């Protein structure tokens, strides 16, 4: 748009990959985990380069939104829009998106984390 070369390189016009959309179809926490099946990866081949990369990463192992943003070098907000689309389209399954509510549920999680830390 007639502007000088931006030193931020690949962060120029980052929302181009979402065709300008900045609002995700649903809110996805930064630590929410996403998983893709093999079939989803095949289907994501036709969903565009970035979505395909995301599907491949999530098929190899469960990845958080934060990891997907870091590994694809997409800004967090851009990754969130793409991931929300992919969840809506059935390409990714979203885990752990709802915060734990209630005493027992929260305490169970804390106990599991504590025992996991002690085993490190």
């Amino acid at each position: 748009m007639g502007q000088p070369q931006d030193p931020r390189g690949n962060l120029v016009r980052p929302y181009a990959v979402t065709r300008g959309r900045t609002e995700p179809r649903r809110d996805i926490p930064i630590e929410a985990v996403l998983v893709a099946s093999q079939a989803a990866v095949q289907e994501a081949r036709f969903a565009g380069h970035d979505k395909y990369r995301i599907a491949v990463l999530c098929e190899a192992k469960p990845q958080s939104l934060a990891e997907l943003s870091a590994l694809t070098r997409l800004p967090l907000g851009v990754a969130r829009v793409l991931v929300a689309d992919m969840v809506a389209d059935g390409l990714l399954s979203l885990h752990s998106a709802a915060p734990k509510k209630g005493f027992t549920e929260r305490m169970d999680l804390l106990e599991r984390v504590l025992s996991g830390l002690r085993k490190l």
Partner: protein
Amino acid sequence: MDFASSERAGAQPKEITSAKIVVAGGFGVGKTTLVGAVSEIEPLTTEALMTSAGQGVDDASKVPGKETTTVAMDFGRITMADDLILYLFGTPGQTRFWFMWDELIRGAVGAAVLVDTRRIADAFAPLDYFENRHLPYIVALNCFDNAPRYEPDEVREALAIPPHVPLVMCDARHRESVKAVLVQVVEHAMATLVAEQSGGYPAVVG
């Protein structure tokens, strides 16, 4: 519970739970070092965009013409079981990025505020932040080589840390030491939860 309805995505029948612990503190206090000491991956960096006005996180395109800047957050991962992953997030060091902290602490198990005894005043702002948030936190003194050694009580008094907030010494480079910090965070979160449940404890920290 929150699966996409499609079968294509349903290959993993088990719900995976992720938890996160936030590591806060001033710029250069050793947050990424701490994360790296226990993470199974090299700490990764995710970047969020914001306008120069400090508004509209990740929403730069909504404000055409405004300069955007990036906020970097480092994080690590500990896979505890095939259905449980713990993430450790370092907060952006600069205070002007605090709105980003709000996203980081949402749903977190708890937080550790890392303090460098050579620049103790840097801890005021992060501590102030957690005083006003509903999130269990502890204070960890990062014992740098050549840093002045203080008694924990001296630091507690200097920083006006409330008595119910645990204060520990640590070495952010050492795995065992960092493990101990994280164990403290979780134990404190459990104690806070139990106290809230029984109603005899101020629910909002501070």
